[in-house]
């Protein structure tokens, strides 16, 4: 059903006469085109992922060798070098590579600034206060500036309108605004490193009363969060309206690719769960700036002195408001990943997804249930056993849809002629990794076993298994998978496979020991990794294992970075439908024209999303727009 080349050429001519060329700034910087905005989100979020990863590696130095002098240049040199190399190759000109190169250099400079300050590293040895900053900012950056913007902002923006056959998002200007508000939020977070006392240091959860009496960085953190929340609100309204209103003719809800469904449910979570955190942020700002006591109990003693607050508030209020967001946020992290994985699995097994309808219903049910499980993060706050029992029950119920989705994806592999390319390897690794992450969550969801496990490294191991080798692998899979759509070239398979196997092995060496340490009772957020504790001695050796694994994994990411930037210019050229896929995004031209709409002809859909290997068809894939 390819339109013949002549009509395409005519169409382009029409376009060129209709649209005068946009200026550089309007086309690439303040663009309203969803593809450009998606790429902007993608590059920014990848940079923040790298920064969050750097913070983690700095923390892991302290955990592996508590009290040893910090070898700053050992950490900065690779990043600075990479930045300089990228800039040297491309030169200073307006391009993605230049932006990335400059960001890498800036990142190295930031870490040099932090590492050479006597307030953070007197005599080169890390202070506990700085360790806490790193911990809080690692979490904040990874969740709010890295993974969610990449999964929703980048993939959602770039792929979703293409998959539903829309010319753009429903509100293009709003889309531009949500990127720039997100960008402002990121800048605000970075600025907080330069205020007295440094960045926020009360953990990414910012529990009061600790956060209420923390240094100025916490105020900046709250302002940054207000930006990020506003950005995702604007984005989620845009996503839902686009999916409901701009579906192509014939594309009914049950013909939507599962990726679109995942974005749809995710957007509802962002829309409805984020405002309570915004409210909580406003209340904490009032506590910090106007002297109110929303989260301050009466007669609180800090450093031997009673605080002057009037009191009458409760710290638990923050925890409720925070987790009312942050539990749905967990599903915001995982649902788009599941969406990406199901696209890739259907495509590379060359057969329809098993149980498409149950996947859809499970995702909807998951979204709904995620609003009523939040207090399982608070079993140890003395809520009372009745409330604990309620939230324990809902927590067990919410595991059912996750298991349905995972099972359906595993069964989809059955009998397929699987192509083991890089995206598929990441997708296949996602399944057991997410399985470990999910299953280790069950003991935490039971209020009795949580007594032993809460606030230990077991918790850290659990949720990192979900997000790092789970979601981040899915995001890597998505990048390798849709790279040809955005650039017209494939990423290098050999480099990709090295990247995959290195990351896969290292991920498990980082996170599995955490489960062991946690079961042995090592608490999280310890500045010395548990060195002072008698019960931790038998598992202390694992700290070095995890740290070395983390640093080695960083080396393997270099393969990805090199592959990514090299392939933009030198990758193998591919056709419009690089993976012989069925969904509408692959019917658009490769690297669809920017700011000119997406499709040469208005697409019309005649069948479901995953019609692979249909008997009687010429090819083993039947695109959605092919007539019956």
């Amino acid at each position, binding site marked *: 059903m390819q339109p013949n080349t002549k009509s395409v050429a005519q169409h382009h001519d029409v376009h060129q006469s209709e649209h005068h060329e946009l200026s550089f700034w309007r086309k690439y910087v303040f663009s309203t085109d969803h593809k450009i905005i998606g790429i902007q989100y993608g590059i920014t979020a990848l940079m923040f992922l790298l920064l969050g990863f750097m913070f983690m590696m700095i923390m892991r130095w302290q955990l592996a060798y508590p009290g040893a002098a910090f070898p700053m240049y050992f950490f900065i040199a690779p990043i600075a070098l990479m930045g300089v190399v990228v800039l040297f190759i491309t030169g200073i000109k307006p391009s993605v590579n230049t932006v990335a190169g400059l960001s890498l250099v800036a990142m190295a400079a930031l870490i040099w600034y932090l590492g050479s300050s006597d307030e953070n590293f007197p005599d080169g040895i890390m202070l506990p206060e700085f360790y806490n900053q790193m911990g809080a900012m690692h979490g904040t950056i990874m969740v709010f500036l890295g993974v969610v913007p990449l999964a929703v902002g980048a993939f959602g923006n770039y792929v979703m309108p293409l998959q539903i056959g829309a010319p753009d998002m*429903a509100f293009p200007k709003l889309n531009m605004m949500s990127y720039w508000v997100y960008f402002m939020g990121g800048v605000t977070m970075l600025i907080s490193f330069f205020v007295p006392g440094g960045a926020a240091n009360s953990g990414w959860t910012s529990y009061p009363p600790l956060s209420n009496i923390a240094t100025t960085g916490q105020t900046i953190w709250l302002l940054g969060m207000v930006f990020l929340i506003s950005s995702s609100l604007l984005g989620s309204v845009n996503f839902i309206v686009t999916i*409901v209103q701009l579906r192509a003719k014939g594309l009914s809800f049950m013909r939507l690719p599962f990726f679109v469904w995942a974005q749809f449910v995710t957007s509802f979570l962002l829309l409805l769960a984020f405002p309570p955190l915004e409210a909580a942020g406003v209340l904490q700002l009032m506590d910090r700036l*106007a002297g109110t006591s929303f989260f301050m109990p009466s007669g609180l003693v800090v450093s031997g002195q009673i605080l002057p607050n009037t009191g009458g508030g409760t710290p638990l209020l923050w925890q409720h*408001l925070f987790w009312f967001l942050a539990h749905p946020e967990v599903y915001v992290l995982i649902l788009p990943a599941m969406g990406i994985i199901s696209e890739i699995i259907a495509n590379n097994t060359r057969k329809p997804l098993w149980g498409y309808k149950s996947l859809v219903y499970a995702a909807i049910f998951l979204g709904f249930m995620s609003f009523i499980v939040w207090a399982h993060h608070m079993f140890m706050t003395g809520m009372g056993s009745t409330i604990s029992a309620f939230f324990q029950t809902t927590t067990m119920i919410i595991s059912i849809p996750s298991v349905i989705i995972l099972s359906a994806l595993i069964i989809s592999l059955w009998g397929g002629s699987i192509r083991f390319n890089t995206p598929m390897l990441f997708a296949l690794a996602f399944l057991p990794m997410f399985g470990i992450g999910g299953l280790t969550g069950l003991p935490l969801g039971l209020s009795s076993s949580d007594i032993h496990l809460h606030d230990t490294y077991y918790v850290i191991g659990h949720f990192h298994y979900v997000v790092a080798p789970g979601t981040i692998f899915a995001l890597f899979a998505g990048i390798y998978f849709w790279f040809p759509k955005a650039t017209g070239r494939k990423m290098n398979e050999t480099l990709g496979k090295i990247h995959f196997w290195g990351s896969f092995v290292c991920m498990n060496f980082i996170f599995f020991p955490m489960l062991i340490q946690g079961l042995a009772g090592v608490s999280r957020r310890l500045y010395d990794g548990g060195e002072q504790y008698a019960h931790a001695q038998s598992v202390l050796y694992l700290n070095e294992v995890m740290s070395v694994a983390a640093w080695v994994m960083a080396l393997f990411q270099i393969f990805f970075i090199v592959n990514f930037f090299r392939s933009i210019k030198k990758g193998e050229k591919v056709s419009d439908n690089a993976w012989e896929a069925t969904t509408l995004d692959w019917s658009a031209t490769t690297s669809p024209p920017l700011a000119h709409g997406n499709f040469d002809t208005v697409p019309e859909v005649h069948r479901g999303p995953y019609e692979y290997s249909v008997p009687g068809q010429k090819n083993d894939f039947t695109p959605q727009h092919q007539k019956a």
Partner: protein
Amino acid sequence: MEIPYTIETREDTGVNNAKLGIWLFLASEVMLFGALFTTYILLRIGSADDWSQLNDILNVPLATLNTVVLISSSVTMVMSWASLMMKDFKKYKLYMGLTILCSFGFLIIKYFEYSAKFEHHLYPSTNTFLAIYFTMTALHGLHVIGGIIVNTYFWGPGSKMWNTQPERFTNRIEIAGLYWHFVDLVWIFLFPVLYLL
């Protein structure tokens, strides 16, 4: 390429993009104020003070006046939309102007209320009731200011669209009206909860 359904409604969903968008936005606003009302309930239940005594310091007559002002503004808002549907642009200008005046009236009355509190040294830090009172009314006030900005734009420079795309402009006024009604609705809840109960 034009974005479809910016003006006309989509047949199977029955709405245009903007109307669905504003309702989704209002849903998130419901969650925002819902969280604050929940906070109010939790703090009041946990408080050692009797909040029905604490709120005696608030000025009920002024708040009643403000309620009347806001209800009137919602009526004029709906009238401005109805005038556009009857192709009466002059009446639209009049009613929209009245709506904006009412919103300013609300803010001026609110200013007198606030300054009276500050004169008696009643601040957000005085007690938890005043803290939630100031937080909620200030956040509502911010929403009023947002409404004023939007409505003033549609009264002034934005109204040029009437000459080129009257249908789209009418839709825009409806959207602005939905937002403005939501802001009024929040006040209808704030008034009894903060001043009376």
